[in-house]
């Protein structure tokens, strides 16, 4: 099983993004590139928030290009607004489990408790976002992704607002969970250190051109000219 982007062309105004790549199942991939290079556009195409002008998105060989975001085998963590602040964490997770009605079904409570424990938030189900620290909010957002139980997880700089130590903690937690659950994760980040810490492979986007994933260590040892310029190496 793999995530495939075949001859994708996505346009946003004058901007064009071209992608042709395959991400193997259970890979952890960092997507790096300068601001405005198209990182978020790429994630939008995979998540279903943007229809490509041409090309197909496949998961396990199945064409998911035209599926609405909520029915794809993909969940996404945004930079912000990952949970509804007027609902408790438990209500948020319940809604993620039952998006048709939001009503809890038998067995849901146990699932929610298990996921909260997995992200280190046991006992926090009755809290609102405003009653939690930044790190706890990130963990709660991660719990929402986990309870959706989808094989592909997209992270669109969700931890950018955290301090370096907390961010590293969150990246380690995601990596650990992804490893255990066999999740395929794409992480967008501005910070090359995030990519080095988290990703096995890296996709570089330069002016709308998406490269195929390359081994992280090898890529940063010998960066291509575009990435070198982005990293400040001239």
């Amino acid at each position, binding site marked *: 099983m793999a995530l495939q982007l075949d001859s994708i062309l996505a346009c946003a105004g004058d901007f064009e993004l071209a992608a042709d790549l395959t991400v193997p199942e259970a890979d952890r991939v960092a997507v790096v590139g300068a601001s405005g290079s198209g990182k978020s556009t790429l994630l939008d195409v995979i998540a279903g928030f943007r229809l490509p002008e041409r090309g197909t998105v496949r998961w396990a060989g199945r064409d998911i290009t035209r599926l609405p*975001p909520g029915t794809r085998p993909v969940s996404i963590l945004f930079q912000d*607004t990952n949970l509804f602040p*007027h609902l408790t964490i438990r209500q948020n997770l319940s809604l993620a489990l039952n998006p048709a009605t939001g009503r809890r079904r038998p067995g849901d409570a146990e699932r929610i408790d298990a996921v909260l424990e997995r992200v280190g938030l046991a006992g926090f189900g009755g809290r609102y976002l*405003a009653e939690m620290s930044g790190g706890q909010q990130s963990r709660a957002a991660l719990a929402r992704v986990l309870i959706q139980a989808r094989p592909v997880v997209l992270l669109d700089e969700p931890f950018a607002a955290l301090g370096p130590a907390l961010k590293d903690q969150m990246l380690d937690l995601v990596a650990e969970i992804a490893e255990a659950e066999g999740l395929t994760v794409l992480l967008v980040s501005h910070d090359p250190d995030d990519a080095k810490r988290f990703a096995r492979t890296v996709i570089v986007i330069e002016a709308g051109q998406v490269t195929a994933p390359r081994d992280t260590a090898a890529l940063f040892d010998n960066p291509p000219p575009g990435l070198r310029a982005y990293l400040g190496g001239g």
Partner: protein
Amino acid sequence: MAPRAVSIIAALSVIGLVIGPVTAVVLRAEAFSGFRPADWQAFRFTLVQATLSALLSVAFAVPLARALARRDFIGRGLLVALLGAPFILPVIVAVLGLLAVFGQTGVLNRALSPLGVPELQIYGLQGVLVAHVFFNLPLATRLILQGWLAIPAEQFRLAATLGMGRRAMWRCIEWPMLRRLVPGAFAVIFVICLSSFAVALTLGGGPRATTLELAIYQSMRFDFDLARAAVLGVVQIGLALSAGLIALRVTSVPVAAKGLDRHAPRWDTAGRMMVLVDAAWIVLAALFLLTPLAMVVLNGVAGLSDLGTSVWQSAGHSILVALGSTALCLLWALPLATRWGEWLGLSGIALSPLVLGIGLFLIVRPFANPFDLALYVTATVNAFVSLPFVLRILRPEAETIRAEYGRLRGALGLSGWAWLWWVFLPRLKRPLGFGAGLTAALSMGDLGVIALFADPDRATLPLKVYQLMGAYRMDQAAGAALLLLLLSLGMFWLFDRGGRVGPAA
């Protein structure tokens, strides 16, 4: 049912409510033989009173808004908040209050007659103007005050640094803002006063002080001349639509120029004379707006214990009509809280409630006795009239919710109902509560369509107060007016408060 389908159904029902009655009125108007001199007089009076009301309201609002903008004093916040109160104040209550101050046996006449000052006459054009200024001075003041407060403090600091005098500051900073806002404020008040009915009914009347709306009412109620009512209705529609379109063109919202939102003292306003002038405007305006209300409370307390069954029955009718209007208005407003929905809702301002009432009367008449349906028709028309205000309140927050949570909704795959129940309604509850409170209070105090249809058994409380006034049972009228005031404010408070309980959305 998909949310889009619900929006379309809501839009079609609003369009139907506009087109159906208007068509019925236009068709009926064909049988009309010609405009009578009294109709021309009503047409002229409508324009004259609307023009003068708007002119006076804006003329008084400019110095009052300026005084409020540049002075800080204890109770300023409360006074600014109270400027919103006349909007939800039942017209008949305000009229009773104004009569208690400016009427023949009012406070002013009693105070001035020993001094040999000729008696003030409230009935006629002057009474209509006083009432319209009472209702619209606060509106104009709030509109213009927003403009003043939107001028960045840095501009006044810069002016002080440049050593600009008072006139130069007025010319360079304040006048451009006023030039942009005042025409809009004038136009909005002009449009509101064009459809004046309850004020003209209670303080106007007679051939010299009859508005078109009042003429429509008289031809329906006294002459049962449906054709004449219909043609007056058509003229009223044309007038309101033209004025509404002009108002839309000239209305401009205050746009804050770039600044750092610093509060800076005004170096040009420190003189003793200027402080006195500002204080005088604020005190006079507060007296003008608060004394009538105080008189309603003072005069009403005694009559409250002896209201009689018919008043309580009318209060019950009013509560039912208000709750029905609120429910219907929210059912329309929720799916229409979009840009195009707000445009559609504007028809609620352009179309006169009496014209709508007559149209519905004509439609219903072949199938049922319209007088039996008075309360239903009133609730429907009140909901329609409140719709533009409720949409103005809901739309900004509704759009923010869609923009902020639309992607999360997509990512979760929430169904339309799950979105509505778990996200949209809870997050919208504050403006929803405010909008519901506004609709309930407006409907509670309405004295419009109900005056056309109701028989004594189906009177609402405002109509009951009017009937008691007509029968010179002033003590009972004052008590009923106080009850109406308490119910209107109470309904507003209950709904508004209801939108604020629970976790902050």
